[in-house]
């Protein structure tokens, strides 16, 4: 393991994070809520340590695949810990674990909060919380690779570990340029959303924070009432549409930019994703229509919740805890599926679900005719055996993780619905669950130990399981 190189890259990441805190510092200064000093202190210390770490010279610039994975895991832990400092300093959090939970929830774009009244936080911290969604959505290292020149180009390992989805690819030959294109699309769409929200009558601060939360598919609300508090059908529809858009693979947008419309629309994953959203919306609309007089309202509410959950954002306009069982069950299923690979959404990813379903049918055909050769295809190309195996392993590990995490949470003596949906919500980076962790409730019901555990679970979910477990394996730290 190339420790010196990893430390020096971590130094750069610290410097980047210090830089990323500057907008929050600015907001804090503008609003003068008294949180500017927290940011100033954090930035100063982080930058100092960062500069010291970047001083470390490494003889060997190479990063192996193993180094890449460990580096990604460490970076995410460290940025979350540092990001939690200003939050903890506000004194609104009951313990450092609660603050860490909140920050991990921010960076992993989960959007689960321990606060009952987020509006009590100073504006700078509120902004930082939402901004962390935006950074975490596309990936911290993707960002670092974009702004900091890396002499050595083993950077693909880093991207592979950080990008959501079964496989990671480049759009253009240079990694740096790929990151820039991705962030360019991401920033442009975020900007567009913020402008649209501004037109809806929201103030600049709320528009920006909501746009960050939507773009990263995070979902931190700025007040206890969530999106319902704005009481605007326009805002809800705009957010629904953008949540859906951010749940789609960014390669599709790149193809659209290149004017390859046919190729973009051909994306199998996107089609399946949209079909699922359509079916779920239709089902829930009908299911909740009995309670709501107006069909348009039930359609709007169903569409908002479906896009919010399937894109793993987790904004809420209604307390779906009180919805009929079928609707709640549908939402839980959507939680598991999540968005498309290569988007900012979490979950199992649509492409993995497609592969798993197809390999199920392939297996059935194989049993019917043992001599036949079966191949699983995705996006009109066959999936190689290695990817298929890793997808199956991923799915199995994912299921085991859910089972054992739920079991572990049960030590806090809450009910099964709460524990199971809390695990699903954290592992898939969604935000709200059901029952005691429902959209209008918060994760404050859990003890500090469980909050810490759920924080780890969120990181495991965001980095797609394997990198975090690598940290626990001794071989990852061997020479």
């Amino acid at each position: 393991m190339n420790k010196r190189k990893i430390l020096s890259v971590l130094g750069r990441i610290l410097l980047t994070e210090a830089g990323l805190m500057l907008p929050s510092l600015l907001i804090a200064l503008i609003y003068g809520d008294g949180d500017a000093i927290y940011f100033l202190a954090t930035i100063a210390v982080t930058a100092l340590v960062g500069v010291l770490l970047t001083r470390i010279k490494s003889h060997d610039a190479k990063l192996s695949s193993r180094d890449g994975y460990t580096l990604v895991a460490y970076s995410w832990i460290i940025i979350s810990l540092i990001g939690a400092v200003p939050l903890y300093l506000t004194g609104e959090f009951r313990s450092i674990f609660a603050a860490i939970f909140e920050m991990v929830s921010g960076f992993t774009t989960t959007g689960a909060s321990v606060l009952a009244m987020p509006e009590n936080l100073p504006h700078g911290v509120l902004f930082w919380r939402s901004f962390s969604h935006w950074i975490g959505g596309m990936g911290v290292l993707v960002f670092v690779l974009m702004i900091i020149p890396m002499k050595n180009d083993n950077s693909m390992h880093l991207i592979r570990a950080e990008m959501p989805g079964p496989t990671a690819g480049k759009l253009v030959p240079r990694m740096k340029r790929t990151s820039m294109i991705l962030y360019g699309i991401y920033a442009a769409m975020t900007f567009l959303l913020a402008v649209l929200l501004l037109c809806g009558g929201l103030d600049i601060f709320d528009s920006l924070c909501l746009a960050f939360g939507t773009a990263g598919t995070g979902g931190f609300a700025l007040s206890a009432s969530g999106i319902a508090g704005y009481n605007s059908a326009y805002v809800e529809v705009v957010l629904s549409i953008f949540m859906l858009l951010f749940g789609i693979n960014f390669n599709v947008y790149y193809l659209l930019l290149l004017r390859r419309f046919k190729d973009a629309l051909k994306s199998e994953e996107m089609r399946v994703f949209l079909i699922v959203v359509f079916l779920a919306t239709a089902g829930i609309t009908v299911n909740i229509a009995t309670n709501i007089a107006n069909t348009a309202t039930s359609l709007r509410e169903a569409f908002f919740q479906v896009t919010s959950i399937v894109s793993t954002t987790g904004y809420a306009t209604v307390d779906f805890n009180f919805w009929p069982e079928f609707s709640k069950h549908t939402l839980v299923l959507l939680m598991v599926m999540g968005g498309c690979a290569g988007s900012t959404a979490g979950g199992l990813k649509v492409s993995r679900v497609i592969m798993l379903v197809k390999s199920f049918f392939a297996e059935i055909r194989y049993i019917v005719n043992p001599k036949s050769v079966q191949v699983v295809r995705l996006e009109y190309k066959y999936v190689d055996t290695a990817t298929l195996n890793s997808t199956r392993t991923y799915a199995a590990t994912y299921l085991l993780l859910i089972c054992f995490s739920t079991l572990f949470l049960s030590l806090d003596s809450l009910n099964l619905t709460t524990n199971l949906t809390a695990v699903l919500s954290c592992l898939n980076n969604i935000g709200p669950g059901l029952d005691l962790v429902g959209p209008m409730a918060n994760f404050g019901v859990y003890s500090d130990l469980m909050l810490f555990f759920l924080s780890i679970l969120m990181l495991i979910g965001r980095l797609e399981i394997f990198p975090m477990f690598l940290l626990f394996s001794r071989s990852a730290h061997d020479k």
Partner: protein
Amino acid sequence: MRKKNKINIHIIGAGEIGKALAKQMVNDGCSVTVVDTDGKILETLSTRLDVFTFQGNGASYTTLMEVNAGDADIFIAVTDSDELNILSCLTAHLLGAKHTVARVRDVDYARQSAFYRNHLGLSLTINPELAAAREISRLLRFPYATRVEIFAKGRAELVEMTLPTTSPLCGKTLIEITQGMGLNLLICAVARGEEVFIPKGQSTLAAGDILYLTGAPNAFHKAFKQLDMPTTPVHTALIAGAGRVAHYLTELLHHEGVNVTVVERSRDLAVEFCRNVPECSVMNDDAITYFDSMSDADITHTDAFISLTENDEFNMVAAMYAKSLNIRKVIARLGADSKLKGIQKGDALRVVSHENAAVDWIMGYVRSLMNAEAKDAVESLYLLMDGKIEFIEFRVTEKNAHLRKPLREWHMRPDTLIACIIRGNKTIMPRGDDVILPGDSVLIATINQQIIQLEDVFESTWEAGVRV
């Protein structure tokens, strides 16, 4: 051509196709240069044929300079390597060769023949495997046909079939057939034993005759039904061997709505094939073993079996086995010079060779190039019965002397026949009152082999014209 200056032809690669091409072209009176890396093959070739041989790498600039490839009227690269063929054609093209023909058979390259033609200066890319696959798919459409060729982009078809003993056509004269049965097909040529002739009105057909019929594609279905020859279409086909021919054939058959199953012995090849060709199911098994593992119902439901493995002997045995299981349509692929054809009894199996398909294809092209200066352009040319019968498709131009003159006033050679006239989308079975117009395609059948332009069809005025 015999009547003109010698045409200069360069052939790179003295494989099956190269040798066959050289032989045909020497017979046509061209001066042929053959380049290959294998000295022994060249030595045998130069003793057997009147060609110039040169040992060297056909893609290298020095070699091509040495054999004067720039002077070639037609430059043909038919080595085993696609890349080498393309490169040597490119080089020859830049050196000044007039027409270049490359054998390109890789599936990945095959889709880009238009690009090669338009941007790399290759006049023609030929794909023997694709040619063979097309031939097979046409054979499958006509259960009784031993060979099917298409003319004028599919608006007319030429079918070769053996007359079965049960056919109502046996013992009838052509007049009886045309008048009595109202067939909208033309019997252009008949092969009886070694003898090939163009039938006249009084000619009688006998069982075992090989008939050459032309007509519109839909006319065949109707005619076969009338003649009590079932034309049940193929719904499911089994292919042995996952090679390139199988790849093209699967795509063609899938397009026609046929369910295709491919059996391949090698696991790796089977997986590879399954990945590249999504349109079929692939089994990893030996074809013969697979037959044994099939249920009776499965076998009854299999309409066709095509054996396309690399191994001629296996193809023959598998095909015969399939025939013994009563699979209706059985086709085997054999090498060009394989004598295995002879071991079958009767004509239960059809045999296809991709080398022959390629040679026919190139010869058609070369012949049409040779005649490019003639008044009426040759569109395509087919040699049947080992070259005893030729079918030539001409495109009629304004210059033709017989425009708008009814056919009954034409004076044609006795060994020649106008088989078909294609005007726009219409296929005309020529009768005495029909005329030809500029832009028509005319299909001529001849056993004379002296036809190089449409004018050659006509005899001097004192000789009697012959019409069927």
